[in-house]
């Protein structure tokens, strides 16, 4: 990871200048926290009529708690974080998630069977091999845009 703020900015600038997609991770210095997003991926959709799902991890490398409060994406007219819960009887259901607090030094994972980015009213299909931008909204006003690669419909994780 980057040792200093200057290094981070330099690396980001270089990446931006070179037009690199920064698909595997993105980070940004906000007022009170380092927010590091890693391993984003989405599952290919079948057309646009059913909701898509995307996953990632967020680390808080700052000194204060921060909450992930929402999502925005051009590819979806209704993007939000949902949570799947499976009870002790093996019954799963899904509901919109509350704000997700990440303590200093902590991490949250959006992964199958837990939190996920639910992308409803897709404006274009999620096509395997393509990427799309997704903006994460945080409680301190930080808006972090990341690039999400689309994996196959049978993907079970960021490695496929």
């Amino acid at each position, binding site marked *: 990871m980057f040792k200093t703020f200057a290094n981070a900015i330099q690396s980001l600038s270089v990446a931006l200048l070179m037009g690199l997609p920064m698909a595997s991770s993105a980070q940004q210095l906000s007022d009170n926290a380092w927010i590091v997003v890693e391993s984003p991926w989405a*599952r290919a959709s*079948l057309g646009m*009529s*059913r*909701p*898509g*799902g995307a996953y990632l991890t967020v680390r808080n490398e700052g000194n204060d708690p921060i909450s992930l409060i929402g999502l925005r994406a051009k590819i979806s007219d*209704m993007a*939000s974080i*949902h949570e*799947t819960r*499976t*009870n*002790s*009887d*093996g*019954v*799963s*259901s*899904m*509901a*919109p998630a509350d704000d997700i607090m990440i303590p200093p030094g902590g991490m949250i994972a959006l992964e*199958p*069977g837990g939190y*996920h980015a*639910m*992308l*409803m009213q897709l404006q274009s299909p999620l096509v395997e091999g393509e990427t799309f931008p997704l903006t994460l909204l945080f409680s301190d006003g930080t808006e972090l845009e990341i690039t999400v690669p689309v994996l196959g*419909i*049978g*993907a*079970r994780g960021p490695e496929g």
Partner: protein
Amino acid sequence: MKKVRIVLWSAVVVAAAVSATLWMTERNQGPVAARVDPEAESFTADFELTDHTGMVQTDEDFRGRWMLVFFGFANCPDVCPMGLATIAQVMDELGTQGSAVQPLFITVDPERDTPSALANYVPQFGQGILGLSGPPDQIERTAETFKIYYQKIEEASAPDGYTMGHTSSFLLFDPEGEFVRIYEYDEEPGLIVTDLRERIGA
């Protein structure tokens, strides 16, 4: 009614006893079915549904093969694609032994998941997986005989204003249609493959 065989479970019984204990302590949350019904000694798969090619299928059509059954719905963005991906990977890894196993995806959302809707969905995960649907009363009867739970949940933010809660475990049935065990939908595919290989080869 089909003949009921007495099957000794061994490890499953222990697992059932443990889940029964957990179940007893957490059951005050409303009507839910047990994942492995501790009261049931055994049960046999029993259904008549329409597959995604339009053919009527009953449990008896799959005698002689193991059935790996997963209940879900196509508008489900998280659990169901994950479960189907797990099954697809299991079938891939089973290779030629996969011919002894028939994976079935039975919808709990018959309003939207007609056989033709399933035809555009289920085979995308793997050609061997058969999608099954039917009129709501047939789905209801199927869920009862499989002892699984499903419920429509009003949810303003979901497509068409509702989502489905449902049993997400896979149910395994032996070549005589007797229930054997469950696997979790997000289980490591390799572990399911190892278990299935032992049973198929036995």
